[in-house]
């Protein structure tokens, strides 16, 4: 029996076991919205398409399953672009369905027409324009396959209106065969052998763990390697949670806002084992000064990340989990005790610290209190800026999929919709969005989404009444000439929350932080907490842009 493209769409998503779609309707996808009424797929209506794509991204990060986003043509599609790029930079499996004008009108500058396939070509893993209904099921199958396998990433499928109206037999392919797409998972045994030799010979090894460890689910394997070998381990922002934050060998984050001891360890090491990390400039600082004395082992699923930014001695292409399993089977550690002792000294000498105050709330204190209260019970989403770095410093992530943050693109406004997506994926978990007052104001309309679907996310606004990170750069590098960073004109966040039907709370003194957090957690509703924090607090340590990572400002 022939069925419409819209029906094929819904049935294909059922085949992919999709249970939730984050979307916003429009003329070109009316057919799909009509079919959704008769389907048990739950549609979450966001208030802006950027919210839909970030929520799908948060859903994917929190659950490990692909997130799905559905928007209309033209502005609906372009509003997702920032979120698509966010997912692309952080290798997040999301499938974006965009409406498109009928095929006969493509190229005519029709109403709400935009070449979204052209626009997103460089920020998707792959994208499709479906030109005939008979291809629809196969393309949806391929889209989910490509998004979730190899190095994951966003895949966009553009759906012209006539394709959704036309009819075809429904046949969902059991297998995918794409001759140009065959990701490699198994590490080459010779390369693994060579890596093992280097590990046994090394005197001062360091593991540099990244988001690939999270994506591949290699947490247990990494932990086993660290426990077996005692190799000190640092992590990128994306890799936090890959090894327990309170593990004795964990050095915290490296890079621009890394710990001094992590950066010193990387600078002095003689063997750097990069696992699922891509030598991003925020992690490496000036490349010539990054681990200058070390040999590099680089484990990554994407061959193109190897020797992109640095020359690697032993590349191992494949899945981090499988490769670490092989390494763990045969690894023989060297004697690193002197090296570990040296690092422990650095830890004692240069701990992360801030000056506590009795009257004014320090932002770091809020993060510490949230951690102290909820520990492993919560999923933490963040926005981008100072608060994001304080979360990286003071929240000890003990599990993967606990931290949802835009690491690669650095997208302000990511936090709230990502938290909403995570709460949909994990209804029984406590979900916090630790936000900046600037970031929150970019997406605050999504409070309505949280209220509508009774998603009890807790938004903790670290409110310093300015764009803190930019203010910090202007203070340190622009002679305190503050330009375009003042956000003193802002809504009353408590009243704002109440007007949306959420709960609004405020803390202005350190003593109020804990009680307010307790109250927020006790109510089963979305909560916005306005933490009035010290305005001029800076994130330290900090490596100035363009410097080597050992050249840190500590205060």
């Amino acid at each position, binding site marked *: 029996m022939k069925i419409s493209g819209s029906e094929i769409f819904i049935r294909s998503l059922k085949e992919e076991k999709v249970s939730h779609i984050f979307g916003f309707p429009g003329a070109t996808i009316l057919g799909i919205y009509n079919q959704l009424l008769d389907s048990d797929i739950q549609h979450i209506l966001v208030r802006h398409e950027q919210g839909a794509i970030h929520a799908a991204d948060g859903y994917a990060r929190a659950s490990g399953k692909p997130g799905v986003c559905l928007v209309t043509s033209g502005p609906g599609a372009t509003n997702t672009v920032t979120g698509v790029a966010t997912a692309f930079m952080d290798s997040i499996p999301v499938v974006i369905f965009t409406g498109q004008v009928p095929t006969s009108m493509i190229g005519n500058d029709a109403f709400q027409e935009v070449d979204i*396939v*052209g626009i997103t*070509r*460089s920020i998707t*893993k*792959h994208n499709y*324009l479906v030109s005939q209904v008979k291809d629809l099921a196969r393309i949806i199958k391929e889209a989910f396959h*490509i998004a979730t396998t190899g190095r994951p990433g966003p895949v966009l499928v553009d759906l012209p209106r006539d394709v959704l109206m036309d009819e075809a037999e429904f046949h969902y392919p059991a297998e995918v065969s*794409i*001759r*140009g*797409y065959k990701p490699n998972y198994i*590490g*080459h045994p010779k*390369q693994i052998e060579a890596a093992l030799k280097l590990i046994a010979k090394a005197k001062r090894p360091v593991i540099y763990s990244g988001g690939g460890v999270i994506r591949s689910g290699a947490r247990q394997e990494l932990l086993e390697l660290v426990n077996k070998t005692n190799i000190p381990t640092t992590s990128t922002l994306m890799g936090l949670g890959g090894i327990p934050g309170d593990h004795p060998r964990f050095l915290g984050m490296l890079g621009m806002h890394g710990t001094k001891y992590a950066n010193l360890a990387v600078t002095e090491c003689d063997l750097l084992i990069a696992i699922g990390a891509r030598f991003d400039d925020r992690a490496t600082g000036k490349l010539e000064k990054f681990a200058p004395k070390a040999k590099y082992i680089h484990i990554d699923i*994407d*061959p*193109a990340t*190897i*020797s*992109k930014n640095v*020359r690697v001695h032993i*590349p*191992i*292409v*494949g899945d981090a989990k499988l490769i670490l399993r092989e390494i763990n089977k045969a690894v023989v550690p060297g004697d690193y005790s002197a090296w570990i002792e040296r690092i422990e000294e650095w830890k004692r000498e240069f701990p992360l610290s801030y000056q506590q105050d009795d009257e004014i709330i320090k932002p770091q204190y809020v993060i510490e209190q949230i951690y102290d209260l909820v520990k492993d019970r919560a999923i933490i989403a963040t926005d981008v800026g100072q608060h994001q770095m304080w979360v990286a410093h003071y929240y000890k992530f003990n599990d993967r999929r606990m931290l949802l943050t835009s690491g690669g693109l650095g997208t302000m406004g990511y936090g709230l919709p990502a938290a909403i997506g995570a709460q949909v994926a994990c209804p029984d978990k406590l979900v916090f969005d630790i936000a900046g007052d600037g970031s929150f104001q970019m997406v605050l309309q999504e409070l309505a989404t949280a209220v509508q679907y009774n998603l009890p996310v807790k938004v903790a606004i670290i409110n310093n009444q300015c764009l803190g990170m930019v203010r910090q750069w202007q203070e340190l590098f622009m002679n305190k000439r503050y330009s375009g960073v003042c956000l003193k004109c802002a809504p009353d966040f408590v009243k704002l929350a109440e007007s949306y039907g959420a709960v609004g709370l405020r803390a202005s003194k350190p003593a109020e932080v804990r009680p307010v957090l307790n109250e927020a957690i006790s109510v089963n509703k979305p909560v916005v907490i306005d933490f009035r924090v010290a305005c001029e607090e800076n994130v330290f340590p900090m490596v100035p842009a363009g410097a080597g990572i050992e050249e840190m400002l500590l205060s």
Partner: protein
Amino acid sequence: MRHTISVFVENKFGVLARIAGLFSARGFNIDSLSVGETTDPTVSRMTILTSGDDQIIEQVIKQLRRLVDVIKVIDLTQSDYVEREMVLIKVDAPSAHRAEILRICDIFRGKIVDVNPKTMTMEVTGDEGKINALIDLLKPIGIKEIARTGKVAMARGKQDKNLAGKGQGGMPLEEVVSEEKT
């Protein structure tokens, strides 16, 4: 250094844009690009001339392989290969120069493909050096118009056993260059 790269791609719309977009987005150079169908109509073969140091060329090849619509990438520069380009040149041809033009055409094993009272159009095939030498010789006579195809290239005979006609869409079965040594 200059590299000649064969890229076998799905013969679909938008694939050329993906390749061109990759080069421009990542700041790689394209010195020459040509595309044509292979014996398998679903596969096109591109010949791309690009330049850069070893690290850049390695990235060019890896980034090309990363595209879902790219089936196979071969860096011909690492092997023995044949490279050709065709050019059409329209020259001023007053009767005083006609004999000279014909002689040059003959030396370069070209063909006159169009003649009229004022101009002659010549078709010549060869490697870059030959084409450039021809253009230098014709310049004093007066070149009116020129159209070059861009280069096409193929590995020399020893790879023949691996070549096409076996349902491989005109693609060599095995890489001339070894894949990422991992």
